[in-house]
């Protein structure tokens, strides 16, 4: 098994499948496009499974490493490898792609091939981000993910899609341009290498570290997104088609969190420690401020988008408190948020496909007509509110425990999510699902079909399994997180 280039397969299988889907042409061959897309997505997922089974949770360093020259004149390598953190994100990404293809099976009726292709290619590119060990390769994958998402929002999106797509593209592109400058600078300092392991060893004075940190921060904070550079996300979500929202929330936001872990912390550890209070403050603002903003949203997708930002606040908080509970909690929160936000957006999608409205006020009493859906949606709502026994609890719990070790008030502010998270999620649920049938449109609703049930059922199972027994998810993280924390604790300031 070790001989198969599994990581390359995880990247290129979906991309090749995506290109193949494009060749099916117009919507006359829509069925072929769907089938090929599903096969591609499933293969893309299956090749990631041996990564988990073959992963040695006790071993330090990167595994499944592949290294080939790419641009030799600049010493850029096609250099892949994963640790426990990237492993989980790759699995999440590949699985989500399968679900998105199934979810779009019936809903998407125009430009089917292009839609499916965009998601497959995006999936491969994101696997590239999570497995790149060369900074330039990382950057190329990181930036190229923007293109398919831009197209997804711009083509299959809602009425205001052009504004949203442009805002999304410019916001994130401008954020990451500075990080390119920082990488080129580091390349020079490291004596002409883009390899992460070389960059991890370069000594840097504090001022330089701070500047590099800020450059990275711009890129990753926009992606996460952190307050106050989050305003692109609600717009993007509202306009994006359901599948776009799912991938955006479940995977793309994680590129930011992953970037902090893979680049910021090990490359500029002293600056990370130095600026941690700032990042922590911004994270806590995200948890509290955004929680309040989510409460008053009238558009379901916007509400869930704000809830995403609030939950991602736990990721950045966990990362920057620099202890095992915090960082492991942050990674588990990313995975869990992948399941839950995907499910929440799919649930809104289910309603939107039937009613063509995202306004909470247009609903009421849906549970009367869609009992199966109501039960699943309730589970996800509770998971979103961080109920123990669901995955939503695990990451938040660990991060709160970790934050307590650093400062009581950090934990205090973070724990407010217990109240706000429940308030905005359940209040929305109440207004949409409970009550008597609100109008004739609700009265005509049909319960979820097989496709929808399958997708939501898989996510429900994952949410429960991870909530009841998170150790299989966490065990691959321990060594990687310890190694990362060891890196952070070693100062890279040059000796006086």
């Amino acid at each position, binding site marked *: 098994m070790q001989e198969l280039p599994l990581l390359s397969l995880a990247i290129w299988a979906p991309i090749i499948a995506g290109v193949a889907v494009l060749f099916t042409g117009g919507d006359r061959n829509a069925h072929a496009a769907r089938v090929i897309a599903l096969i591609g997505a499933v293969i893309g997922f299956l090749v990631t499974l041996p990564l988990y089974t073959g992963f040695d949770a006790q071993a330090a360093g990167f595994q499944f490493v592949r290294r080939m020259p790419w641009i030799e004149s600049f010493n850029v390598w096609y250099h892949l490898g994963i640790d426990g953190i990237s492993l989980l994100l790759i699995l999440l990404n590949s699985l989500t792609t399968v679900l998105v293809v199934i979810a779009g099976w019936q809903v998407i009726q125009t430009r089917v091939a292009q839609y499916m292709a965009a998601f497959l290619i995006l999936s491969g590119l994101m696997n590239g981000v999570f497995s790149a060990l060369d900074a330039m390769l990382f950057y190329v994958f990181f930036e190229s993910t923007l293109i398919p998402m831009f197209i997804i929002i711009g083509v299959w999106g809602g009425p205001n899609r052009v504004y949203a797509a442009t*805002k999304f593209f410019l*916001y994130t592109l401008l954020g990451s341009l500075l990080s390119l400058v920082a990488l080129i600078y580091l390349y020079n300092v490291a004596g002409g290498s883009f390899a992460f392991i070389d960059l991890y060893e370069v000594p840097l004075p504090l001022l330089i570290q701070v500047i590099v940190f800020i450059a990275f921060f711009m890129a990753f904070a926009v992606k996460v997104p952190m307050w*106050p550079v989050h*305003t*692109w996300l609600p717009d993007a979500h509202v306009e994006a088609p359901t599948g776009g929202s799912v991938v955006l929330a479940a995977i793309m936001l994680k590129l930011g969190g992953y970037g902090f872990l893979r680049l910021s912390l090990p490359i500029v550890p002293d600056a990370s420690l130095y600026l941690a209070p700032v990042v922590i403050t911004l994270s806590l603002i995200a948890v509290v*401020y955004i929680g*309040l*903003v*989510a*409460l*008053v*949203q009238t558009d379901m997708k916007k509400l869930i988008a704000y809830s995403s930002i609030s939950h991602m606040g736990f990721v950045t908080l966990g990362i920057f408190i620099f*202890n*095992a*509970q915090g960082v*492991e*909690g942050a990674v588990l929160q990313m995975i869990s948020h992948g399941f839950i936000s995907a499910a929440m957006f799919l649930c809104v999608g289910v309603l939107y496909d039937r009613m063509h409205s995202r306004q909470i006020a247009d609903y*009421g*009493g849906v*549970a*009367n007509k869609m009992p199966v859906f109501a039960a699943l949606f*309730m589970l996800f709502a*509770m998971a979103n509110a961080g*109920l*123990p*026994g669901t995955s939503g*609890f*695990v990451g938040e*719990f*660990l991060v*709160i*425990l970790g*934050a*307590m*070790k650093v400062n*009581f*008030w950090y*934990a*205090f502010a973070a*724990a*407010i999510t*217990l*109240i*706000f998270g*429940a*308030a905005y999620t*359940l*209040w929305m649920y*109440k207004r949409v*699902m*409970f*009550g*008597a049938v609100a109008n004739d449109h609700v009265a005509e609703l049909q319960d979820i079909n097989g496709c929808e049930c399958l997708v939501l059922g898989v996510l429900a199972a994952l949410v429960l399994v991870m909530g009841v*027994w*998170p*150790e299989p998810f*966490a*065990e691959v993280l*321990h060594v990687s997180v310890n190694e990362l924390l060891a890196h952070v604790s070693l100062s890279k300031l040059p000796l006086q």
Partner: protein
Amino acid sequence: MTAMQKLYLLVPLAPLAGAIIAGLFGKAIGRRAAHTVTILGMVVCLVASFLVYRDVMGGNIFNGPVYTWLVSGNIRFEIGFLIDPLSATMMMVVSFVSLMVHIYTIGYMADDPGYQRFFSYISLFTFSMLMLVMSNNFLQLFFGWEAVGLVSYLLIGFWYTRPTAIYANLKAFLVNRVGDFGFLLGIALVLMYFGTLDYAAVFAGADRLSGNTIELFPGVSWSLITVICILLFIGAMGKSAQFPLHVWLPDSMEGPTPISALIHAATMVTAGIFMVARMSPLFELSETALSFVLVIGAITAFFMALIATVQYDIKRVVAYSTLSQLGYMTMALGASAYSAAIFHLFTHAFFKAVLFLGAGSVIIAMHHQQDMRKMGGLAKYMPITYMTVLIGALANAGLPPFAGFFSKETIVEALHHATVPGAGFAYALAVAGVFVGGFYSFRLVFYAFHGKERFADPHHPDVIAADAEAAAVAAAAAHDDHKHDDHAHDDHDHGHDSHAPHESPAVVWVPLVLLAIPSVCAGWLIGTFVYGNYFGSSITVHPAHTAMATMAQGFHGVFGMMTHALGTLPFWLAVAGAGSAWFLYIVKPELPAKLRRQWGVVVTILMEKYGLDRFNDWFFAGGARALGTGLWKGGDIAVIDNVMVNGSARLVGWVASVVRQVQSGYIYHYAFAMIIGVLLLLTLAYSG
């Protein structure tokens, strides 16, 4: 795994299996199969609990893990069981009351379309509650804690088309979350200082850390144990509905009556009491925390009892009486009388379940009418219900030889002996509360079961008042933004005046009788339960807290306690309370209305529940929405999007338009600019 360990697992898993089968396959298997399978699960659970109980009382205490939930850093989070006298007792109470409620539900919910769902929920609740009490660590405790909150939410909102029900369940969940917020912080502090969440390890290390202080605000240091205990107790205040987090419990009566009995009286609301008793090794180290517990309990016990005296809704009377009784248990905890608190929890579980299920039986007979003004004289129509409710009321009022007498009397006496700051205050309120308790218990009995048969008399002034009030509520609901049909399930009073009420079917009255028996005699166990070494190592009392030890010396058996009580104030207060109720509702039934008019202000304050609901709605719910809107419109839209984001875009546009002027197309403009540029560069190059 030994046979006993398999039994431990069977106790929670049997109801869980029932819940899953009834929940997922309810439609397919039908009603009869759904209740059969869940009740079968409960029977297995009760038998297993009993075997475990017998084994534990034989001295076999178990403390061990089931599986590792998560490892992080050097901390192992385990799911595990601690089976000792305390948890075994709780297991018995939970599984017995739950089984009774399961059986009762067959009758109560017979016509409900959500029949299978209901059985699934109550079994799921039983599973959660058992996991809570059987836990050997804080993590699993929190799991059970939140899980019972979830099921309570689902059950209060069981009739999800009713606006009042879905308002009440959201309120219940959020108020509980406020408590859980404190609870979680307490757990996090425990983990931080003790490095583990395992009870045994934490309690073993408690003494060592009793001198530690923590500085939450610069310059102000508090005892660590005090902070931990108060935070944990905030959780208990949510779950066990202590002032000011009690506001959710009365509204939870919107749920079907069987769950009011099971969850909102007998078991879930006692989770907080159980938790504090379980944490006795921590609480015993902090006088401040005990004092806090005591005062909160005293306020709840007395002031909630007062509200019960003016309510007309039969379930709400019982609900406020539950709040008051929970206050008594909390006071007992504060006085270090943990065994008395658990004993009261134990007896209360039976007599309060009887009162609720009896009220439910009345509600069935009255065709889902809950207003006592429209009842009266029911005793002769439903003698079994009457007898059981009477027993429940006698126990609730604390009259010998009924169960509540022994537990309540012990608590009052313990408060008398207690020395923690605030004990005097608590004792005074507890004694006064006994009078109020006697009054509201018998007000219910006399008003609903004796006197004029108002249900058949639409012209009785009480009925007219009740109808007018109901009409006003309905009109207010119609003005509500929802405009939903309020009369979906429970409120259809279709012409019940036509035929007389009758006794409920056997599935309803058999559980009532089975619960009434321990409501009479459970108190007689006081000798072993409170004064024997029943709880052994599961409860710790600091040697300086001597109240229980002193009382143990003065205890001379059940009869001694009863005869002694005849000479004490609480007994006569309870009798006086019951007597006043008799006077007001039997002898002079026109007097209460007159008194209500004379004491208008006081009655209004009580009917308004001291204004707390209004304040919470206005300040917390309204405040959060206003703040959220302000941050959204002011922060996100105005400042970030309009000024910063679109502002930058406009800035770029403006710069471009300025720069565009430079690109004029005239050669001499470019040449001029080039010359200037070259000059500048030269200057820079040579000046350095």
